[in-house]
């Protein structure tokens, strides 16, 4: 059987879902039998590929750069997985959503810092008014809940997709 290609990426997330992915331990060899990991924080490739079968997308969408990226990912990806609660619900990054953006900056750069009195306004991606779930911007094929989803669930989902089945996640994954 021809191997599928897999990309993994995190946007506004903590990398916890990726840590959970690494927790599949030696089963990573089974993953490698079914997938070529062609883009990921785990491999040294800078540009998101033009074509990929499956993408695990961790994190909420919080900046203009994230929006651009998620649209690019959707265009290139056959099966897009919203990977973890931040991608599915916007989760912890959304805790800033009911504050004004200027208050968020003040808190982040001034009030909580002792040696900085500047709010940077260039060279950084522009923060959106809110942190949004992935499906706010693009269609998502599989919602993989959990903070983080367990390694077993991630492994199960990847195997099912590789075998051409739709993963049955309602009994295996939940929010939180």
């Amino acid at each position, binding site marked *: 059987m021809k191997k599928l290609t897999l990309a993994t990426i995190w946007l506004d997330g903590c990398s916890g879902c990726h840590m959970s992915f690494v927790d599949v331990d030696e089963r990573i060899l089974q993953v490698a039998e079914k997938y070529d990991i062609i883009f990921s924080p785990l491999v040294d490739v800078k540009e998101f590929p033009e074509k990929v079968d499956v993408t695990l997308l961790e994190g909420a969408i919080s900046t203009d750069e994230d929006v651009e990226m998620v649209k690019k990912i959707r265009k290139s990806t056959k099966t897009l997985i919203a990977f973890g609660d931040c991608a599915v619900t916007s989760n912890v990054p959304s805790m800033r*959503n009911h504050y004004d953006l200027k208050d968020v900056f003040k808190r982040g750069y001034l009030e909580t810092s002792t040696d900085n009195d500047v709010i940077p306004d260039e060279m950084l991606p522009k923060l959106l008014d809110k942190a949004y779930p992935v499906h706010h911007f693009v269609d998502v094929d599989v919602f993989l809940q959990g903070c983080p989803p367990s390694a077993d669930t991630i492994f199960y989902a990847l195997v099912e997709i590789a075998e051409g089945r739709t993963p049955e996640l309602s009994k295996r994954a*939940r929010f939180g």
Partner: protein
Amino acid sequence: MSSSVNIITLTIDEKQVGARENQTILEVARENGVEIPTMCELKGLTPSGGCRMCVVEVAGIPKLLPACMTTVSEGMVVTTNSERLKKLRKNILELFFSERNHICAVCASNGFCELQLMAQKVEMSHVHYPYLYPHCEVDASHNRFVLDHNRCILCTRCVRVCDEIEGSHTLDIKGRGIEAQVITDMDQPWGDSETCTLCGKCVHVCPTGALIERGMAVGEMSKRKQLLPYLTQMREVKT
């Protein structure tokens, strides 16, 4: 049971069942092993019909009816689990999630929450409505309990238990619709309440992490709802 109660027959999910005429569809369904999802209902409290999770189809009636509030009648034909109902329940649950800030990952009730578990049960994979992200206060003025409006679904179990079982009526609801909010006394900080007896029943009937014991960290706040049927039974014995 008094001998004057009439026994009737009805059909629930194509199954003929017998019931007392003053029972609700929900009670009869449960007695016959038919599970109808509920959020605001809790055995031992007066049903309020607020959450709408338990809506069922009754043949001949175009509207959906809440099973917890609808009494059975002779020859009634009830459907509890059609595709339409499943879809509606999922939508109702999505509205709960979109209306406040339910962030399971950082909730004291993570792993014990009825809302979280219900999402899994009705197979709600995500919320397709836009989230409202309202600004909600956390009332931590009480020295034993915390009221976090971010996580409240307005089921009113706390209001009912405080009124009906404890007899204090410290808790109530102000506002209407999406503006509605649980309050203590005349909308004063809970810590200043003169009527709260510190019994903690509200905390233990709360389905989510909206009411918790002070000092509970993520995933620590399990609730002891089993206290309620016992208390209600004792009250009935006494009166």
